[in-house]
Structures are given as C-alpha cells and as structure tokens.
C-alpha cells in the first residue's frame, strides 16, 4: 500500500473520530449545535433599560419623521454593500474599539439598531451595549436589513 493510501485512511479515521467526539462533546455540554436558543432573541426582559423591538412600520415612521438614528450592527463590508439611508455603521464586534463612533451618536434622539434580520442577534446585543453606555432611548428593528430591502425602502451604498 502506498504512503498516500495509508495517509488517506488515517485521515479518514481522524475525521470520523472528530465527528463522533465533536458531536458527543457538544451534545453532553449543550453547546454549539445543541445549545438552547438564546431566550433574549425575542424576550428582552422586563427591565425598563431593556431595548424594545419595533416592526417595519414603526421603523419607517421614525425614519420618515427623522426622530431616530439607525445604527447598523453588521460588518463594515456588508454595510458598504448597502444599508438603510442615513444609518451609522457600528459593528458589534468593534463596539469597544470604535469609541469615537459611540460618542458621536446623538443622546437626544432614539437609536434604532438593526442587523440582517431574524437570523442574527447582533442588533439586540448592540442595543444592550448602547443602553449600558448611557443611551436612554434604544430600539431594535428586529427584521432588519432583509425586511427593509424587501419593502424597497430608501437605501444607500458606500463606495
């Protein structure tokens, strides 16, 4: 048997063992693929500081009345490809490093965070962080960018 055939069989054995160990470990620990869905995804708690979820109609009303600033929690790459017109990009992963963006957000207006949509959680996490940073009026546009795009509402692209 050639070296390659032996190595190929050994590789397959390692992959099989990894599959078994990986899935058993995550199952026993209740992590990763077997993790319980995060409860805060829909329920944001009862604290007065918790951000409230708004639907597309309310988001559009606030957009048209210019009473709110939209904060895009997605990555800069996605933001550049397209975002709600007038939105400010503040990726959740860069919240700590982008203190200048946080401090530039208006405290006298409502902030509306959004990400891609129901499949992402970063809009909620970003809203919580903004409240912790002292912003009193923060809402989450939960159906996010996907819904905004589907409704063909005003968007902007950064070159």
């Amino acid at each position, binding site marked *: 048997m050639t*070296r390659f055939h032996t190595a190929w069989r050994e590789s397959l054995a390692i992959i099989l063992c990894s599959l078994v160990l*990986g899935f058993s470990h995550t199952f026993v620990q209740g992590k990763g693929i077997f993790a319980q869905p995060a409860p805060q995804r829909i329920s944001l708690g009862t604290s007065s500081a918790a951000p409230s979820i708004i639907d597309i109609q309310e988001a559009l009303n606030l957009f048209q009345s210019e009473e709110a600033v939209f904060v895009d929690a997605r990555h800069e790459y996605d933001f550049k490809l397209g975002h709600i017109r007038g939105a400010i990009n503040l990726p959740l992963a860069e919240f700590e490093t982008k203190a200048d963006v946080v401090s530039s957000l208006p405290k006298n207006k409502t902030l509306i965070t959004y990400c891609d949509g129901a499949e992402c959680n970063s809009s909620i996490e970003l809203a919580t962080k903004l409240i912790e940073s002292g912003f009193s009026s923060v809402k989450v546009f939960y159906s996010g960018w996907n819904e905004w795009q589907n409704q063909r509402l005003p968007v902007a692209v950064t070159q």
Partner: protein
Amino acid sequence: MAESKASGGGDAIMLKRFLSNEFNVLTARLFLGSLLLVASIDKIADPAAFARSIEEYRLLAGPVVMVFATVIPWVELLCGLSMVFGAVIPGSALLMGSLLGVFTLAVLSALLRGLDIGCGCFSQDPAAARIGWLKVGENIVLMLISAFLYFAPSIRFSLEHYLMHRHKNP
C-alpha cells in the same frame, strides 16, 4: 553536464538526509503538534464563538458553519496529539496540510474582498489577531512543515516506534 547531474544528485542526497534526520522530524512534530493543541482549546471550549468567527468569512452559512465549528477543533486536537505522541503521522500531516490549504484560501478570499475580520485561529476574541498577508505566510510555513512530516520517513521518538520495538522484542 556530468557536473550538473552530480550536483543534482548531491541536492537529492542532502534533501534525503534532511528528511530522515530524526531530530528535525521530532522538532517539526512537537512544534506543529503543540500549535494545533493550543489552537483547538479555545474552539472546543466555545464552539458558538468559533462558528461566529467562521461566519465572519462569509463563505459558509447556517448549519454547515455549525458542523465545521463542531468538528474542526477536534480534528486539530487529534492531529496535535498524533504529532506530539507520534502516531499516524502521515495521516495527520496530510489532513492538516489540506485543512491549512483550505484556511489559506479562505483568508486570501477575505483579504481580496477587503474584509477586516478576526482570524479565529487561536483565540475567538474578535479583537485578537486580524487576518492579513502575514497570516497567509504563516499558513504556508505550516503547510510546508506538514508536507515535511508527510514525506519524512523517521518515526523515532514516537509511540509507533516504541510499539513496533515492543512487538519485535517482547
């Protein structure tokens, strides 16, 4: 002509000697093995964070990401153990070389798309090492070490060597 042939033969002998030097093989095994063990720990402890790191590359989505995040850390752990203890080395080297090739392509693709994201290689903290050309270089060096271990015939200082001798001289 004869001189160049002789020089070519000399290079081949040098390469063969380098490949068969048991201390070179041991050093490469311990280096790559310990690196893989360190890389796997954070990912095994928090597969969801590793899944987020994979998602950042925007190449895979949904359940595929979770399957990768569940299995890859264990591949790294098993390959790391195999290298450190010296068992099924060609298989581990082939697997790691192939995986590193895939990781390098992912990093290259992200760099070409202008993504500024965390590597997700050793730590899942988004503020930790970002991807860059240095990461591509590092991966290429690790692929060369994997290739070296794949072709190296020496199994001295390994579990396989110990078991073979024990079997021959019980």
